[in-house]
């Protein structure tokens, strides 16, 4: 169960910390219970002291209930199904699923994909995702949450419900991310489920993984840049005439060579180097390829690195090519040169490699993301025109400007 605690997402997490995760599981579980405001000390002690009942059939007194985890998954499914509905059908989900729904902001317009095969593929995935929403709502019955408000561009605004034209590449990149994140979310949730709930989650997981495997191959074949182009942001301080960004809040997922966007950043400036003095938030330093042309004060400006794949649990969909085929067979997903803290890997599938495999996620295994890690991705704001970072404690943002619906809705604060 080590991979299943509500683990606080630490943007400066290191591989070493991941390796230590297993040994910290009891403490994390205790923190998790505390974070939820559960005050039953005796019950809490029983939970953390007993290893055997890893997935008690009822956990409502000690933490989120199984239905809470399924509702968390339902929120993800609402996002996926709604996005697919707009890009394939040009309309919202069927009205039978949208009763008491929140508002859909900035939905994508119907997308014309480059080939009939991709069009068909995405349409079938729409069928699956729509069916997952229906299936989960049936399983949950009266406990099913309604669809929350969403900003389908991930922009954390509720200003417009006008449809937005998105490129096929952007749409493919977005759904690729959704599928890979969905897989990791269920990998985490499963341990809290039993019986039919567990089997249903596994069946949805398998379908999600089917989608991810195929979409990653499509993205590779289309040679699309990984999109959304930026879903990790960071804040820092720059000085006019200097190439150095100080007080950097978060270097997770950033990659040398990524383009930087922000007030005072010279157009086209890229990350030349990333220096991590410690894991403390706000202590990193980034060297740019060009001097800043304006100064900022502490945390006054948030910069966004573009083409930054993810949070260290995402493998960039890339075919490493003939020169790397032996390395692929012996090492798995390959390190992207110049990445930092945590490194970025590339490959056909979103799995651990020899280099970043851990006890809980060995090489060749798919990753698991805690609910907090999932929300960090979904609550982050991606656009270059918005500078909002999902931080510990956040309960909304990005795709969910009013938050997800249900008991599990915020990124845990570090305990």
């Amino acid at each position, binding site marked *: *169960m*080590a*991979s299943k605690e509500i683990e606080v997402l630490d943007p400066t997490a290191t591989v070493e910390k991941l390796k230590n995760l*297993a040994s910290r*599981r009891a403490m994390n579980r205790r923190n998790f219970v505390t974070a939820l405001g559960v005050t039953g000390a005796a019950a809490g002690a029983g939970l953390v002291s007993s*290893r*055997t009942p*890893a*997935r*008690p059939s009822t956990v409502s007194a000690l933490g989120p209930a199984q239905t809470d985890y399924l509702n968390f998954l339902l929120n993800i499914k609402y996002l996926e199904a709604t996005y697919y509905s707009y890009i*394939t059908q040009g309309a919202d989900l069927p009205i039978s699923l949208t009763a008491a729904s929140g508002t859909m902001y900035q939905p994508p317009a119907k997308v014309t994909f480059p080939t*009939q095969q991709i069009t*068909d*593929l995405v*349409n*079938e*995935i729409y*069928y*699956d*995702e*729509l*069916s997952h929403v*229906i*299936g989960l709502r*049936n399983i949950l019955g009266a406990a099913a949450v309604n669809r929350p408000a969403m900003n389908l561009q991930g922009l954390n605004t509720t200003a417009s419900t006008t449809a937005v034209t998105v490129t096929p590449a952007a749409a493919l990149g977005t759904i690729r991310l959704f599928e890979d994140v969905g*897989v990791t979310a269920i990998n985490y949730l*499963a*341990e809290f489920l*039993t019986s039919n709930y567990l*089997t*249903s989650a*596994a069946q*949805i997981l*398998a*379908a999600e*993984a*089917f*989608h*991810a*495997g*195929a979409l*990653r*191959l499509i993205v590779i074949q289309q040679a699309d840049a990984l999109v959304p182009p930026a879903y990790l942001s960071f804040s820092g301080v720059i000085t006019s005439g200097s190439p150095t960004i100080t007080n950097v809040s978060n270097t997770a997922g950033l990659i040398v060579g990524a383009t930087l966007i922000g007030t005072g950043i010279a157009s086209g400036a890229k990350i030349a180097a990333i220096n991590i003095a410690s894991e403390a938030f706000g202590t990193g330093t980034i060297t740019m390829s060009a001097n800043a042309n304006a100064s900022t004060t502490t945390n006054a400006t948030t910069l966004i690195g573009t083409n930054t794949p993810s949070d260290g649990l995402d493998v960039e969909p890339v*075919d490493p*090519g003939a020169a*790397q*085929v032996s390395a*692929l067979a012996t090492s798995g997903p390959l390190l992207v040169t110049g990445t930092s803290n945590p490194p970025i890997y590339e*490959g*056909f*599938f*979103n*799995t651990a490699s020899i280099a970043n*495999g851990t*006890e809980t996620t*060995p*090489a*060749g*295994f*798919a990753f698991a993301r805690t609910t907090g890690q999932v929300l960090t991705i979904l609550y982050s704001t991606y656009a270059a025109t918005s500078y909002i970072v999902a931080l510990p404690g956040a309960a909304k943002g990005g795709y969910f400007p009013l938050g997800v619906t249900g008991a599990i809705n915020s990124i845990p604060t570090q305990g």
Partner: protein
Amino acid sequence: MASKEIEVLDPAATVEKLSSIATARALNRRNFMAALSMTGAAAGAALLSGCTSSTVAVSTTTVAPGESDVLNFALNLEYLEATFYSYITQGTDLPASSGATANSGAITGAPAKLTFATQQITDQLNEIYFDELNHVIALRTLLASAAVPRPAINLAAAGTISTAATALSVARQFEDVGATAYAGALTLLTSSSLNYAIQILAVEGFHAGALRLVSIQNSIAYSQADSLDVKPFDPGSAATAAAGPTASGAFFATAGAASASSSTPAGFAFTRTTSQVLQILYGTPGVIGTTKGGFFPNGLNGLIAST
């Protein structure tokens, strides 16, 4: 470390163990045992009497397979997959360092290293080989001394693998079957065993999704494994695709409107019992009680080895 421990290594699980498992879990286990037609010690009665729910009747004398037995069942499947990919991508058996070759059964029908149509397919299969090899290694590590050795494997059970197209057809089927096998076995596992299984399940799903697309793109021949198998198929129409899988096939092996059931709703992947999996791998469709055949001429190693 706790996360690496096998929760239950003893097939004769204790009353305490079963008491800790959800009522529905125990019920599933009974169904599972029934599906396996397993008969066993009278200890089963004592086991079931420890269940907390009175709805679980003591109506059968069976011994539940322990979690290590379920993991060993998975290990047999991973041996098959990893060995297959090793030959077609590396031209040799699995490395000795994997532990798979010690005390191994004979490997027959092994294909030579194959040349695939494109570099992309070659690269992809090499990465899949990496994954499967590491699933073997990780499962053996988790099981430790309880890990079964690799059984005898006949890689030519479904026909000689002499071409890339044949290999892709077999690979596609292995991955789809593997995904359903894990999905069907998850409720028999807990804790670290469950976590391992579900993370492997995801990877089998990745492979299946990609290989099915490769199969469609390269017009790879389809051999239907059983009634739950779905032919890799592009309907050639967005509207048709949006209606879900049909008898003609689909991009993904999920239930469609016609094949959906209460246990596998539309859009969900199927599950297969161990018996259903073995009927495919033993080449004995619809036959119960078979203990060997097909890809496993001497049967699986471990307690779960019968259709």
